[in-house]
């Protein structure tokens, strides 16, 4: 806080505008970053945050507007020039090379031509001095997401930047790893460096940021001191109106209810050298309950979802049981016919065929389960029945679109996700398994989807939600289990679960050990 009193702006942005086709992603954005401050950039998905920082880092070219660096007008034509100015960036979607070592990855972004061994030694020393230990010889493909982010940060710091841009840095970290990151950021601030911090986690922003700029639909809608705001008031600025809170009705009689989805000693060998094996997973999801699976990305959640949904079949048919029957040997359609529904993480290409209409996507996933309704005699498709069912889902989920029946790729991520979730909910499935239900979905739509999942469970279905968003899991789950390195912990009832307990499990603490230390602490 003390360093930014001299009023010198390291970076000033005036009227920066970027237009993609008919969409104005950034509309005359103004932004000032002082020396030695942590400046938050807030906004919902699609508000233009990423577009703005890409222009600051030279990977996108603005249509109009000016950027001042230390008071001088600059044109940042490419990332190389941004680095030369002293701008470093830690990307949201990592820009690492999996087949190379950490040291090689770091060397690629330094242009000084020093040998890899020198760079490795420097990286090791720097990483330990900031308390982010790193083995430069390790292969990136073998590292956890948290460790990969350390490489990104060390790589950025080795360039000795004046301004560090961090795009959603904590979305892949455990709460404890995030604390470590905040210490690093505060140390950097005390060294006089400026930080542009992008996040949608408002508690974090309140904790470490000095000032905030809020974007909505590509426009700056406000500046504030986050410490003087509440999370609710910040959210209101971002969304533009109140976000309806999710209501979790008490679950009654869950203890005696039938398990509808049973996972018994599910194991799986790693499919590729860089993927995670599943280790003896056991879980029951009973009628009426929502179970959440937390975990840092890349700990086997994707592999687990594939095994449960039937994208990958199991040797042991009893390792996945749906409504009391073995389903491990059945494919996706077979499991759907038993009353299960699945929503994968990847929307385009996995959850929906991008170049096909919504009604066609509906038919693709439900031609078997709703064969009588959608397919007539001789395999002829009943277009009208499908069209009206699609319209029913669009209405129920409040999907916003530009045409009556657009292609899936034409929808924004949040709206497509609402349609995909709605498509499965519309069947009233007995078992629903969702991977990252609200990833990249704006706050309003996310609340809608979460509420719908809770209501499905309360109407007597078993709901399993895999998510990296701890806030979300605490909002909707009756119990939370944690996946770490391919193994699943015992589910903790929500009344016993705390951020700290779950965080320790996410970091790999032994379940028994974690509980013990917390009880004594």
């Amino acid at each position, binding site marked *: 806080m003390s360093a930014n009193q001299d009023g010198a702006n390291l970076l000033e942005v005036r009227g920066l505008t970027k237009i993609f086709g008919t969409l104005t992603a950034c509309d005359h954005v103004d932004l000032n970053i002082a020396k030695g401050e942590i400046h938050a950039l807030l906004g919902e998905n699609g508000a233009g945050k990423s577009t703005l920082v890409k222009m600051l880092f030279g990977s996108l070219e603005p249509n109009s507007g000016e950027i001042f660096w230390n008071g001088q007008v600059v044109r940042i034509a*490419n990332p190389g*020039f941004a680095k030369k100015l002293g701008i470093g960036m830690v990307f949201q979607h990592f*820009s690492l090379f999996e*087949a190379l070592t950490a040291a090689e990855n770091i*060397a*690629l*972004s330094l242009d000084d031509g020093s040998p890899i061994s020198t760079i490795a030694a420097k990286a090791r020393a720097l990483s330990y001095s900031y308390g982010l230990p790193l083995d430069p010889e390790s292969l990136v493909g073998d590292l956890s997401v948290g460790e990969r982010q350390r490489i990104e940060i060390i790589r950025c710091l080795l360039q000795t930047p004046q301004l560090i841009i961090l795009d959603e840095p904590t979305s892949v970290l455990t709460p404890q790893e995030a604390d470590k990151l905040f210490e690093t950021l505060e140390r950097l601030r005390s060294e006089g460096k400026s930080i542009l911090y992008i996040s949608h986690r408002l508690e974090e922003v309140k904790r470490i940021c000095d000032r905030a700029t809020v974007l909505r639909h590509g426009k700056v809608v406000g500046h504030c001191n986050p410490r003087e705001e509440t999370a609710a008031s910040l959210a209101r600025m971002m969304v533009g109106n109140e976000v309806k809170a999710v209501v979790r009705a008490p679950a009654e009689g869950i203890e005696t209810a039938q398990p509808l989805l049973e996972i018994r000693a599910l194991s799986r060998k790693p499919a590729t050298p860089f993927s995670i094996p599943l280790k003896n997973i056991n879980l029951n999801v009973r009628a009426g309950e929502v179970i959440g699976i937390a975990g840092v990305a890349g700990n086997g959640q994707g592999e687990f979802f594939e095994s449960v949904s039937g994208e990958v079949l199991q040797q042991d048919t009893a390792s996945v049981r749906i409504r009391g029957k073995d389903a491990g040997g059945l494919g996706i359609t077979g499991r759907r016919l038993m009353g299960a529904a699945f929503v994968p993480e990847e929307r385009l290409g996995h959850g929906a065929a991008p170049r096909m209409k919504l009604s066609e996507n509906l038919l693709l996933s439900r031609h078997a389960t709703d064969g009588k309704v959608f397919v007539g005699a001789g395999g002829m498709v009943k277009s009208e029945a499908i069209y009206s069912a699609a319209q029913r889902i669009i209405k129920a989920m409040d999907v916003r679109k530009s045409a009556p029946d657009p292609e899936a790729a034409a929808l924004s991520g949040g709206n497509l996700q609402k349609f995909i979730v709605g498509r499965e909910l519309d069947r009233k499935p007995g078992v629903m398994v969702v991977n990252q239900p609200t990833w990249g979905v704006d706050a309003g739509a996310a609340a809608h989807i979460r509420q719908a999942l809770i209501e499905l469970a309360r109407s007597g279905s078993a709901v399993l939600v895999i998510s990296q968003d701890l806030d979300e899991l605490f909002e909707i789950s009756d119990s939370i289990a944690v996946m770490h390195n391919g193994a699943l912990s015992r589910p903790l009832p929500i009344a016993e679960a705390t951020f700290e307990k779950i965080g320790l499990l996410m970091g790999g603490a032994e379940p028994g050990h974690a509980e013990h230390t917390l009880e004594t602490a």
Partner: protein
Amino acid sequence: MDITVNILLTIATAATPLLIAAIGELVVERSGVLNLGVEGMMIMGAVGGFGAGYLTGSPWIGLLAAIALGALFSLLFAVMTLSLATNQVATGLSLTLLGLGLSGMMGTSFVGQPGQRLPNLDIPGLTSLPVVGRLLFGQDPIFYISIALTAAVMWFLFKTRTGLTLRSIGDSHTSAHALGIHVIRYRYLAVIFGGACAGLAGGHLSLVYTPQWVENMTAGRGWIALALVVFASWRPWRVLAGAYIFGAVWIGQLHAQAFGIPVPSQLLSSLPYLATVVVLVLISRNKRLTMMNTPASLGQPFVPDR
């Protein structure tokens, strides 16, 4: 003894064009570009090399012409796939078809003409040493180039910063772009290098192997070179091993046919392909190593958003 030396010499001559074309394509694919036009660039090198040698009377000018024509032809591929972001598979295939047709047309007047042959190396004293003399010191110049090229590419890819950058582009062109690496520039240079190598390999066919011009004289060698790169899991020394195994079995089965071994000739002719695939698959069993060496962005067009 003399027979053994002769057989070894013919093996080297059969393996050299495969090795050169494959090493060039290896560099191209390491940068993430799949150029299926090796056969086309090779035949252009062959006709260019023969033609320039025949018209000027100097096989050395022929050699340079072969390299230049291969590189020029690959430039066409580079402009299409890198600047205009066309589909690499389709463009590569059409490059092969175009090369085969164009070379046939260019070479009509060369058919049946005597060609120029690059002289073998002859170092007084050394070349006349028994056995090793002719093997080590008496081969054609392109043989030495091929070995040096393999070593140089190995050193470049795994020991230099530029080589590391090239490999990183092949692993993820979006990450490389985000770091400020000029993806397209590197790929242009890699593709042109690959073209020059394919041209040189073609030149070897028409200036050393059989110093004459015959239509379609590459006879599928470009395709074998492409397959070698994949089966060798994008590693230079394995490409060298693969090329020599292929050459050895190829020459071996020719001798077997000449001896009249009672095995159908078609089966013998297929042996080199079979043996090469089996050996290279066996040495590529380590899935982890293969994964590390496979260029993950191979064949994907790259269009940076601005």
